[in-house]
């Protein structure tokens, strides 16, 4: 069983670390989005924002046959919107709730970069998602076999002997982090697979529906199924802001997103999807309105037990239900997962180094990837914040350039790790991560972002929290660098 734990941990370790690191950052995706678009202020009236965005999309894209807008909420200050025309050409923009137009200022990936990397790994569909699922499944196996391997696991929780150094200290640290957030690690990995269930395990739907996947998707999201065909008779679209208020009353919850199908046609439908306020589960409930008359047509029935279980597990992973305290617990759980994986990877090399008279290629490769990926991911995350502020505003495909900076930073760290003695590589890369994290708020303040003191003075807690977290991470990596330099 120890063999299973060691090798599943090693094989999937670097990938799971990258997934955990970006997933941990994604807990604060809306706040990171707000940090990357400092021109936006918190909006108190989401319905007015929805109306402005709907008007702007209809004005800018009169050929759109459907469009979707996510309203601002207490956390997100921008509005994600996308639309498609009759030829299936798809467009996407982040909009300012105050005007409905695309957000002014430099284009950016915002919080999407970490979120997308977390489950797509910047690889083409569906390979990145499949790799993420496989890594998560291996990680669950590693956790379960780890619990079986460490028979004294709960006694180990109270045992941390950093002064002993070497393998003992790393094993203690690995056990401590593993037990500290064991239920979190287990459920977050398992529910992560559940969020991509139709990609990773499409055989339940295949068994039930055969080749008729359109019927499966219609049953899975009944609000958008069986929409009427276009009549060809023009009819003005009813104002969406009053409908949003009616939808809230009908759904007994807040609105996650608005979809308008065939705007401007007599058969238009306005669909409001409920968010999961007041419940853990991701909701598929929606209120459907006649787009021409504004009459409420239907609200889909609640899901059955299996779909309700799926929605619960999905919601548990996404943590959209969580308040500020619980979100911080998710964040700390994610950090402990990163620590668990990193200590496990280091332990593999520490346990073998003494036995090897001369390190072979495989051992050296693991050493290089350990320092390169663990510290490189930290540097890449911090590097994104620098790229967001420092890349020229008029750069073509600026969000793409941010992604390139992210990947190039990771690659550079791995290369640096290969060129330096391992202990120095750890210390130097950790120092670089510390400088990048701690420097991000300063670079932001000097390059058009909102400074920490201004955010604090205006009571903008979201913006100040991102800056303070970056500074705290900088201090954490400085501590790691100092310890690595001393060992």
């Amino acid at each position, binding site marked *: 069983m120890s063999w*299973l734990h060691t090798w599943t941990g090693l094989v999937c370790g670097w990938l799971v670390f990258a997934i955990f690191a970006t997933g941990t950052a994604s807990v604060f995706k809306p706040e990171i989005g707000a940090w990357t678009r400092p021109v936006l202020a918190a909006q108190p009236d989401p319905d007015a924002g929805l109306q402005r965005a709907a008007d702007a999309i209809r004005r800018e894209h009169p050929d759109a046959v459907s469009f979707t807008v996510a309203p601002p909420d207490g956390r997100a200050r921008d509005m994600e919107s996308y639309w498609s025309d009759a030829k299936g050409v798809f467009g996407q923009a982040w909009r300012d709730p105050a005007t409905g137009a695309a957000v002014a200022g430099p284009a950016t990936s915002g919080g999407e970069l970490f979120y997308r990397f977390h489950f797509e790994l910047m690889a083409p569909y569906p390979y990145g998602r499949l790799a993420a699922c496989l890594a998560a499944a291996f990680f669950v196996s590693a956790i379960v076999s780890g619990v079986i391997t460490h028979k004294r696991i709960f006694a180990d929780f109270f045992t941390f002997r950093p002064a002993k150094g070497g393998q003992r200290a790393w094993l203690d640290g690995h056990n401590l982090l593993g037990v500290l957030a064991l239920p979190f690690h287990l459920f977050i990995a398992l529910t992560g*697979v559940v969020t991509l269930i139709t990609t990773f395990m499409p055989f*339940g739907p295949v068994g*039930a529906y055969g080749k008729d996947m359109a019927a499966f998707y219609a049953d899975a999201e009944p609000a958008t199924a069986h929409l009427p065909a276009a009549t060809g008779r023009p009819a003005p679209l009813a104002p969406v802001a009053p409908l949003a208020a009616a939808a809230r009353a009908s759904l007994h919850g807040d609105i996650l997103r608005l979809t308008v199908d065939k705007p401007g046609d007599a058969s238009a439908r306005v669909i409001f999807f409920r968010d999961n306020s007041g419940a853990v589960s991701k909701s598929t409930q929606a209120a459907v309105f006649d787009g021409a008359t504004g009459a409420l047509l239907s609200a889909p029935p609640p899901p059955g037990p299996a*779909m309700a279980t799926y929605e619960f*597990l999905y919601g548990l992973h996404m943590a959209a239900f969580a308040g500020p305290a619980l979100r911080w617990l998710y964040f700390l759980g994610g950090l402990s997962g990163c620590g668990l994986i990193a200590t496990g990877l280091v332990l593999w090399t520490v346990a073998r180094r003494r036995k090897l008279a001369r390190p072979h290629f495989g051992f050296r490769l693991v050493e290089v990837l350990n320092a390169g990926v663990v510290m490189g991911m930290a540097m890449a995350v911090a590097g994104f914040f620098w790229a967001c502020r420092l890349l020229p505003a008029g750069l073509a495909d600026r969000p793409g350039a941010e992604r390139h900076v992210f990947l190039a930073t990771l690659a550079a760290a791995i290369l640096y790790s290969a060129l330096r003695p391992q202990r120095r590589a750890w210390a130097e890369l950790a120092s670089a991560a510390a400088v990048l994290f701690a420097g991000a708020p300063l670079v932001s303040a000097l390059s058009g972002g909102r400074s920490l003191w201004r955010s604090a003075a205006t009571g903008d807690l979201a913006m100040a929290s991102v800056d303070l977290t970056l500074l705290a991470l900088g201090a954490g990596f400085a501590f790691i660098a100092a310890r690595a330099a001393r060992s």
Partner: protein
Amino acid sequence: MVLAVGANYALCALVAAAAGRWLPRLGVARIEAAAAGDLVAIVLLPVIPIFVFAARSAWRPTLAMGGAIAALALAVWAMGPPA
């Protein structure tokens, strides 16, 4: 070992397919059957390797999985097209 990992996934996939095919015949909605089958498969997927590694040799559990795969494939085929 690669064979055991492949058999593990195939077994879970067939459990999901069999549940998706069989449950609607008991009156369960198709979407419920599909979701239930997939959820059971996802839970089984990381648990099966524990039994493989608990055995002294990986061959015996791999052969057992092969037998289960054959039986489930036959059952899915015998049930015919989706209801």
